[in-house]
């Protein structure tokens, strides 16, 4: 190619690229326009809502710090829900992950059934589970724990299954060559390779669970969410601010803790 050739090719590529970009962006804009109309995207309404939002924020300050004492129990409950929700998820996801991984599942049917089951657990929001469980076992944090546990199991087990499928083959073959049985290969060959990522992701799931646990109260499944919604509906905005502050601090602490733990593991 000569210099002139390069320049000509560049010009042509630029034209083609421009055409393609135009096509894609027109399509994307059309999609966005259509969906915006469908959901009633209305910047004017947003602007009109600004005075309300400012008023809301204004009424939140200063936060009613006396309210903190009342929130103590709810905060503790939120953490407890997250702890046991994640713990149950960890326990349940280990066998489910092994059943849901191509290289450790006993049978193809079991594999597919497990994967479908896990997908079901993953797609359903914790709040939806909470709604159903509140009906089944009554109001209170117990329903919340189960809700978090099931959803987290779905996420954790699928992640773990993918890790199990992605293990290094070498050590596995070496173990088989020594005559180890199937279970031994899993326990000594596969599990050790997967443990660091699994633990790290579990810690991440705990972080997510704390966040989820803060709103379970909306449906009566325990935690800070109930207080938050109640104070908002009663226009007790100073107390709402306290709630938000507590949630913010809780999530920040959980974030920091989880980041430190995960850094130590990896």
């Amino acid at each position, binding site marked *: 190619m000569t210099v002139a050739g390069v320049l000509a090719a560049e010009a042509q590529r630029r034209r083609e690229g421009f055409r393609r970009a135009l096509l894609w962006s027109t399509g994307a804009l059309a999609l966005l326009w259509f969906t915006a109309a469908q959901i009633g995207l209305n910047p004017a309404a947003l602007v009109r809502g600004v005075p309300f939002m400012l008023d809301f924020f204004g009424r939140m300050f200063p936060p009613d710090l006396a309210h903190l004492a009342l929130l103590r129990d709810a905060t503790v409950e939120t953490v407890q829900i997250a702890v046991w929700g994640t713990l149950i998820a960890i326990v349940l996801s280990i066998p489910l992950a092994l059943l849901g991984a191509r290289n450790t599942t006993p049978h193809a049917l079991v594999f597919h059934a497990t994967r479908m089951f896990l997908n079901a657990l993953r797609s359903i929001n914790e709040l*939806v589970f909470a709604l159903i469980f509140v009906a089944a076992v009554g109001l209170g944090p117990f329903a919340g724990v189960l809700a978090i546990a099931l959803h987290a199991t779905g996420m954790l087990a699928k992640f773990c299954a993918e890790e199990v499928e992605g293990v290094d083959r070498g050590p596995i073959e070496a173990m088989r060559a020594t005559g180890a049985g199937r279970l031994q290969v899993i326990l000594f060959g596969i599990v050790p390779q997967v443990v660091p990522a699994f633990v790290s992701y579990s810690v991440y799931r705990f972080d997510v669970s704390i966040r989820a646990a803060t709103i379970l109260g909306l449906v009566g499944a325990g935690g800070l969410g109930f207080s938050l919604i109640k104070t908002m509906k009663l226009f007790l905005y100073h107390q709402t601010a306290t709630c938000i502050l507590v949630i913010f601090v809780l999530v920040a602490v959980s974030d920091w803790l989880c980041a430190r733990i995960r850094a130590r593991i990896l």
Partner: protein
Amino acid sequence: MAVGVSAPGIDLLEDLRARKRWRLHHIALAGAIVAFLAWCADGVNLRPGEVAGALPAIGEYFARMWPPKWEFSEVLWKPALETLYIALWGNVIALFIGLPLGLCAAGNVVRSRLVRNTAKAILNLLRSISELIWAVFFVAAVGLGPFPGALALGVNFGGILGRLYAEALENIDPGPVEALAATGASRLQIIAYAMLPQALPQFVTYNLYWFEVGVRSATVLGMVGAGGIGFELVTTIRLFEWRETGVVLLLILAMVTVIDLASTYIRGRIYGS
């Protein structure tokens, strides 16, 4: 320990035995963890008897959802699509909020500590408040419907994505950045030519993943009047119409599965090239 000349094997065995012995602080730690867990369990009314009783109860409720009332799905298409649109616009808004804030929060993009810390603080505030709470707030501000839902998702995910963008930017290879600085490029040019191109694949991955999460989150926004299939879901549960609930759950499952597959396909196309 043996002094002077000693067979190495003996020292090793002694060492191993020493490790296997339970130290006092190990026992104390284990005990503390068990006590903590017991205290948590008590706080949430988690008792073995309760759990044993709960499982059949839950099973019974799920059994009531079978067979699903398929006719009900007729009224569900519009809310289901609405859920997807909320997730879509939620991510678009999140991009517009998260990208500038993420750029400001990245240590290698912006020098000023003040700007960076302010951006990080804003992002943290946005992400700590659950999207459901934002939804309640926005419904009060702009009225019922899917619009406040998209705003809520956008604001919350903006915080999440912004932080992820900042991390991705901070993890790029600094070599090309130095090279471009050496050619005399200005700060903005360096960001555009050396930083963003490197971080772009990560950005795309994050956006695809969080769109998926967005669909799942959007399914419950209807509970507080912020649009999507959540309203139908809550209503059927509150009216004990379990067979209809079953249909809604299956529809949600189908939606999420399709999105999951599409996202995997797109990711394959991007990384394959």
